[in-house]
């Protein structure tokens, strides 16, 4: 699409990828300390920006707190320190006004460049509409390329999580497990749904996001962004997922009593598999002769 741009971004991606060496988990790990680099170029750039901001803060922190610690040991009254009377130093004051400005510019520069890329939702290959409801998500496949689709379904918390999360259910949250994309059993308590959002890999997918009743927010950390789903307003975003997998997220805007119980599951599959799945769903939707009919779940591809 954009030759020069994609050359540069591929280079950037390569650098970031080497830096984080395959640390992309589809789920949070116990005792996890840091953000996940995610599975899109955007999420990796966001991660790199986050780490850059973090290290800037660490360096400034070491300098400032270091100076405080030195002062606390060197200028103790108990060690006979005699107070100075100065309360000015124009050179120092100029330095610590100007240097932070330069640091901030160095932060703002990459941030701006990532933002501009994230805001560019044009030239997408397909469109999915996301609607937030109290307390579930609705997904509409609008089009792939020039071909319109009528596939629409609702995605809710899975039954096992739903039963376990009842007040004093007596059920064990640790027992709610499911196989991830590579077949490994993982805990999916409150992070699993009945019908995941199936998406193709390596495809620029445009999302239009809105809310039906109150404000929700659609967030899958692995994709690198979240977007508020607001009644009466349509926002748009895009992603392009590089690795097949199952990526889990949650509603991120307080939306009432079951705000914590409307997860998001994205199942990214290779393009061919996706097309096959979507066409099956389209056939079912057409057969039912009702564009708003919920999709039949069994058609969803299981983990190979």
């Amino acid at each position, binding site marked *: 699409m954009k030759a020069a741009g994609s050359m540069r971004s591929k280079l950037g991606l390569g650098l970031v990828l080497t830096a984080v060496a395959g640390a992309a988990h589809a789920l949070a790990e116990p005792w996890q300390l840091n953000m996940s680099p995610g599975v899109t170029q955007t999420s990796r*750039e*966001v991660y790199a920006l986050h780490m850059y901001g973090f290290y800037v803060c660490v360096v400034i922190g070491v300098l400032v707190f270091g100076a405080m610690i030195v002062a606390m040991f060197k200028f103790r009254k108990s060690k006979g320190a005699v107070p100075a009377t100065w309360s000015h130093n124009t050179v120092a004051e100029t330095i610590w006004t100007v240097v932070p400005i330069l640091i901030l510019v160095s932060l*703002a520069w990459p941030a701006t460049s990532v933002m501009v890329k994230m805001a560019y939702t044009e030239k997408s290959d397909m469109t999915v509409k996301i609607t937030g409801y109290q307390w579930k998500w609705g997904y509409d496949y609008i089009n792939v390329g020039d071909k319109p689709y009528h596939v629409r379904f609702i995605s809710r918390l899975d039954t096992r999580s739903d039963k376990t999360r009842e007040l004093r259910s007596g059920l064990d949250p640790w027992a709610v497990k499911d196989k991830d994309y590579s077949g490994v059993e993982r805990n999916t308590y409150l992070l699993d749904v009945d019908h995941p959002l199936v998406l193709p890999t390596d495809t620029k997918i445009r999302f239009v996001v809105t809310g039906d009743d109150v404000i929700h927010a659609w*967030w899958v950390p692995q994709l690198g962004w979240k977007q508020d789903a607001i009644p*009466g307003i349509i926002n*748009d975003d895009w992603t392009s997922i590089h690795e097949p997998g199952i990526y889990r997220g949650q509603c991120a805007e307080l939306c009432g009593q079951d*705000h914590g119980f409307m997860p998001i599951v994205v199942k990214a599959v290779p393009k061919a598999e996706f097309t096959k799945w979507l066409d099956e769903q389209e056939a079912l939707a057409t057969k039912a002769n009702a564009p708003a009919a919920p999709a039949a779940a069994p058609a969803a591809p299981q983990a190979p």
Partner: protein
Amino acid sequence: MTTHAVAHHDDHHDDKPHGFLHRWVFSTNHKDIGTLYLVFSFIMVCVGAAFSGVIRTELMKPGLQFVQPYFFNEMTTMHGLVMIFGAIMPSFVGLANWMIPMMIGAPDMALPRMNNWSFWILPFAFFLLLSTLFIPGGAPAGGWTMYPPLSIQGGDSVALMVFSIHLMGISSIMGSINIIATILNMRAPGMDLLKMPVFVWSWLITAFLLIAVMPVLAGAVTMLLTDRYFGTSFFNAAGGGDPVMYQHIFWFFGHPEVYIMILPAFGIISEIIPTFSRKPLFGYQAMVYALASIAFLSFIVWGHHMFTVGMPLGGELYFMYATMLIAIPTGVKVFNWVSTMWGGSLTFEAPMLWAISFVVLFTIGGFSGVMLALVPADFQYQDTYFVVAHFHYVLVTGALFAIIAAIYYWWPKWTGRMYNETWAKVHFWWTMVFVNVLFFPQHFLGLAGMPRRIPDYNVAFADWNFVSTIGAYGMYLTPFMFFFILWHSKKHGAPAAARSWEGAHGLEWTVPSPAPFHTFATPPVIHDEDLAHGDVSH
């Protein structure tokens, strides 16, 4: 504060009103009203902490063990409202009442009867707010930010919440009017604006912020009220309104509000660090200008609370750049505090310990603030526990630590008695450990992907939530420690000198300890060397 404590100072003309009703309910004395504010906010800290106790206990383990999700949301909402409007803000107003007249050589606040009213509205406001816990439909559960359409889905708690916020707003506005009139008109001759203590400056600026934004909040919640009960559609998309407009109006109030809760803290720290460094504040004028710049910037950065609502790219860029600018004056303040310590003669009494920990931990809150300003990163941080960690570092280890520092610092002046330094150190170190155990892991939770305001979570978040809850339980002992230390000091503390700290400067230290019921009935003759900033060349 009580008749007992001042009984040693019979030589001072003491015409305290007799009887509880006359002394406290009808009080027009700035010192008594200051005490009322501080006692009230102490009670509210305990109430707000109790709400957070429900939150942290439910979050200790995955699964719902104690409360229903809706009640959990009531708790998060009430915790926010009570801590912000009931604990932090009134305690700063209490400190302002006590100290501003004494620091500028005024006999009292400019409008003493309105001062009484400002305080006595507050218990009624919080009676309304807390009563919602007992009405059908329960307390507000839409978050302290009260975003529609969710917030107006509640029962009749909506009306009670709105009226209680109106009352809090009226109280704050009247308090601010009083502070502005006092500082601008009641200073003793010779107390020029640029000789005023930084605490007084910080409150003058804060009062203007309050005047500018509390009416905005009142307008926003009034619109919620009419949307809920009178069929208007200010924020109702189906009726042609705009839910995002509420967020713009709310955060136009909300961001200055954040600085309303931190600027007086900056003022307090700028009093304490020079005292215990025995060295003048570094860059007094720069500190004042930094306060003013932060206040100005607070009006033009509200959009950074709303990066994920889908603003146009240009708007997001503007709010990002403007927000990052705040780091400059804030950095100046931190560097100046460190420079004040540099080359001083430091001792580490309790107020200084709290002040130093304020500088360190508030700066950590500032660091995560800079990270949050980076819009693409904010797309990940927004509405996660990272944000919860950020604002608790700013508000607990920032604002609350400064309030505790101020109480230790001026307590001898108020009561004429010193506190027990050993117990105060225990209180400090206990708090230092547990506040970080409580809030630091919340950074990790947010980065790992845990949204805020959820009552239950995936087991991957279990470990750090457990640690955080342990920290919270440690913190719940601290109000009792603090209360005990102050009570013990009041009963058995050593008598305090007029200048209770060796390095203390300013008019408040020229009056006896405890401060007589009426100070500066005639304006003092000001000697510049009594003042911390008497030399205008600073």
